[in-house]
C-alpha cells in the first residue's frame, strides 16, 4: 500500500549540516510528517522556493554564504503564505525577535528538542491549512456556483440554506482538521459526511460507525482495534476502524453520549493523530480525516461539564449545521417526488401521482424526525395506496399521532410551550372572540385557504370551522 504523503505540499528544511537534516527528517517521519525535502546549500534555497510550492520552511540561521536571515527576509516577502520556522543558536534572543518581526512564524532555540521540532512543524502546517481555507471561503461567499455538484447528488434539495452549506463544504473539503456536523435526528448528517469524503478526493475508504451506546472498552476496541490476547476473548488481532480509514475518512455518528474517558481518547487522536490499540504500548499514527456528528446541543453540554471543553474546542474548527426539514419546507415537493420514486421501485408499484394538497398538508407539520420520518411516511402511503392518486389519509394519521405527542391536551400546555406559540402583548389582551379569529386566520393562511387542513391544524372538525367562518367570527380589529 502506497504511503500517502503528509502534508500535501512538502516541507523544505535548510541547514548546512546534512546529517542534522537527516536526523530532523527521521523525527518528523516518526511523527507522520513524511513529505520533506532537505537542502544543505543556502545558495540554492531561493531557487527551490521558486520552483514549487512548499507547505512550510524550516531554516537554520547559522549558515555560511547566504545567511538564514537573508533568506528569511526574501522568502517572507515573496511567499507570505508560507510559514517560516527559524532555528537560532542558544542565547540569541535578540536575533530571534528580529526575525519574528521580519515575518518568521515561529522560532526554535538550540538545543533543539525532538518534541519541540515536531510540535512547531505541525502547528505551521495547521496554520497554513486554516489560512488557505479562509481565503477560499472568502472567495466563495460571493460565488454561488459549485465546482463539484455531483458530490452532492445524494442530497436532494433546491433550498438556498443548503446551497450555502454546499459552498462551505467545498471550501473546507481539503482539510485535515476534524469536522463537526450538527442537526436534528434524520436530517441527513451521514449524507453530508459522505459528500465531504467524496469532495476531499482522498483515496482511502469512507468508514462510518455509530458510537452511541458503546461503553469505553467497546469504543476503544472498535476504533483502535486490539492485539491478539490483549483481553479475554481476544483470539485474534482486530484492526480498528481508524486503520481501515487510513488515507480516507472516519465518520463517528452520535458522539454526544461519549463518556469522559472516551472523550479523552478521542481528543488525543485529534490532537496528536496517535492512538494505542488495546494491549499495545506502541502508539500508531493515522492520517484519516475525522468527521463527527451529534444531535445534542454541544455548547450546552460543554457548559454543564458533560463534554470536555478542549474536545469541544477542537471539534469546533469546522462546524456544519444542517437545518431541520421544517426550516427548508420549500424542498418538500422535490423530496416527496424523490421518495415516491424510490418507494414505488422498492414496492414494485407504479409511481402514484401526487395530490396538490399533500405539500400544503405536510408543510403544517413539524417533522420531529425530519427527512427520515418523511421518507417513512411516503413509504407507508405508497404501500397502502390503491388508486391512481395517492391518498392523504396515511399522512394525516401519522401527523396526528405525533401532534398528540407535542401537545396532549389544553390543560397541560405548560408556560414554556405556550410562550413559544403565542407572545401576548403587554397592553392589550385579545377577547376570546378575537383570539379565535386570529387563530382561524393564521390557520387558513398556513393551509393556503384549505379549510380541511386548517381544521386539522386547529383540532376541530371541518364543519365546526366552516360554521365559525360562516357566522362571521372573522371580525376585524
Amino acid at each position, binding site marked *: 500500500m502506497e504511503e500517502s504523503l503528509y502534508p500535501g505540499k512538502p516541507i523544505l528544511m535548510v541547514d548546512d*549540516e546534512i546529517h542534522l537534516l537527516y*536526523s530532523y527528517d*527521521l523525527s518528523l517521519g516518526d511523527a507522520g510528517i513524511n513529505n520533506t525535502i532537505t537542502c544543505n546549500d543556502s545558495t540554492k534555497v531561493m531557487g527551490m522556493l521558486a520552483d514549487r510550492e512548499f507547505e512550510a520552511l524550516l531554516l537554520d540561521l547559522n549558515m555560511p554564504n547566504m545567511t538564514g536571515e537573508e533568506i528569511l527576509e526574501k522568502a517572507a516577502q515573496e511567499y507570505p503564505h508560507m510559514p517560516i520556522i527559524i532555528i537560532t543558536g542558544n542565547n540569541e534572543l535578540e536575533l530571534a525577535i528580529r526575525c519574528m518581526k521580519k515575518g518568521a512564524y515561529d522560532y526554535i532555540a538550540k*538545543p*533543539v528538542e525532538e518534541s519541540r521540532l515536531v510540535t512547531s512543524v505541525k502547528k505551521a502546517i495547521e496554520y497554513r491549512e486554516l489560512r488557505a481555507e479562509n481565503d477560499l471561503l472568502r472567495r466563495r461567499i460571493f460565488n454561488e456556483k459549485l465546482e463539484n455538484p455531483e458530490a452532492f447528488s445524494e442530497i436532494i434539495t433546491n433550498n438556498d440554506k443548503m446551497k450555502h452549506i454546499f459552498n462551505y463544504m467545498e471550501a473546507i473539503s481539503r482539510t485535515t482538521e476534524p469536522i463537526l456536523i450538527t442537526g436534528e435526528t434524520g436530517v441527513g448528517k451521514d449524507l453530508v459526511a459522505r459528500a465531504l469524503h467524496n469532495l476531499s478526493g482522498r483515496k482511502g475508504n469512507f468508514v462510518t460507525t455509530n458510537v452511541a451506546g458503546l461503553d469505553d472498552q467497546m469504543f476503544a476496541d472498535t476504533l483502535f482495534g486490539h492485539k491478539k490476547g490483549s483481553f479475554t476473548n481476544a483470539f485474534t488481532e482486530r484492526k480498528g476502524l481508524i486503520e481501515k480509514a487510513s488515507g480516507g475518512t472516519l465518520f463517528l455518528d452520535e458522539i454526544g453520549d461519549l463518556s469522559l474517558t472516551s472523550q479523552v481518547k478521542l481528543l488525543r487522536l485529534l490532537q496528536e493523530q496517535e492512538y494505542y490499540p488495546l494491549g499495545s504500548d506502541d502508539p500508531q499514527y493515522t492520517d484519516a480525516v475525522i468527521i463527527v456528528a451529534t444531535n445534542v446541543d454541544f455548547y450546552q453540554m460543554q457548559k454543564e461539564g458533560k463534554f470536555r471543553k478542549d474536545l469541544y474546542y477542537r471539534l469546533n474548527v469546522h462546524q456544519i449545521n444542517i437545518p431541520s426539514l421544517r426550516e427548508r419546507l420549500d424542498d418538500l415537493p422535490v423530496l416527496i417526488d424523490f421518495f415516491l420514486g424510490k418507494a414505488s421501485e422498492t414496492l414494485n408499484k407504479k409511481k402514484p401521482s401526487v395530490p396538490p394538497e399533500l405539500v400544503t398538508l405536510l408543510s403544517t407539520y413539524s417533522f420531529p424526525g425530519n427527512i427520515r420520518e418523511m421518507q417513512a411516511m411516503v413509504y407507508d402511503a405508497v404501500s397502502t395506496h390503491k388508486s391512481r392518486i395517492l391518498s392523504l389519509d396515511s399522512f394525516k394519521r401519522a401527523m396526528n399521532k405525533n401532534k398528540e405527542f407535542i401537545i396532549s391536551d389544553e390543560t397541560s400546555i405548560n408556560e414554556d410551550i405556550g410562550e413559544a406559540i403565542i407572545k401576548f402583548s403587554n397592553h392589550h389582551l385579545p377577547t376570546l372572540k378575537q383570539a379565535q379569529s386570529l387563530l382561524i386566520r393564521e390557520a387558513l393562511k398556513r393551509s393556503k385557504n384549505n379549510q380541511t387542513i386548517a381544521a386539522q391544524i386547529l383540532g376541530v372538525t371541518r364543519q365546526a370551522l366552516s360554521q365559525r367562518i360562516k357566522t362571521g367570527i372573522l371580525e376585524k380589529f
Partner: protein
Amino acid sequence: MAMKKDKHILIIDDEYFIRIAYQMILTDAGYNSTIVEDGEEAFEKILEFESKNIDIDLILTDINMPKINGFEFIKKLKEFNSKIPVILMSSYRYDEIEVLLGSKFSSKNNINNYAFIEKPSTSESLICCIDKQLNHLSLN
C-alpha cells in the same frame, strides 16, 4: 592500519539531534559509535565497555554541556588514568572558550594536548580529524 570497523567511538553531546547526526556521520565513515547525553553517562559506558573487554578508541565530546562540561570531563578522565584520546567539539570559537571557562583552561599547553574542532564543521573535516587522531595513536 587497523580496520575502521573495529574502531569504537563514544560521542557525548547534550543535544538530541546532534547526537543522531554525529552517529550517522561516523556510521557512514565506517566506524562503530555509541551516543550518550552527558559526562556521567559517558563514564558508565566506559566502565561497561571495560567489563566487556571492548576498547573505546576515541571520545568525541561537546564542551558546553550542563552537569559537567567538556573540560571537566577530560580532567576526570585523567584522574582515572585513562588513555583514551579525546576530541573536543565546540560551538564557540577558541578564544571565546577562554572567556567562558576562565584562564585555567586557556593555557595553550593544555589545549594542545587535545584536538579541538569548532562547530559547525563539515563531516569531512570531522572524519579527517578523527582519522588523524586514530592513526597518530596507532603509529605510537
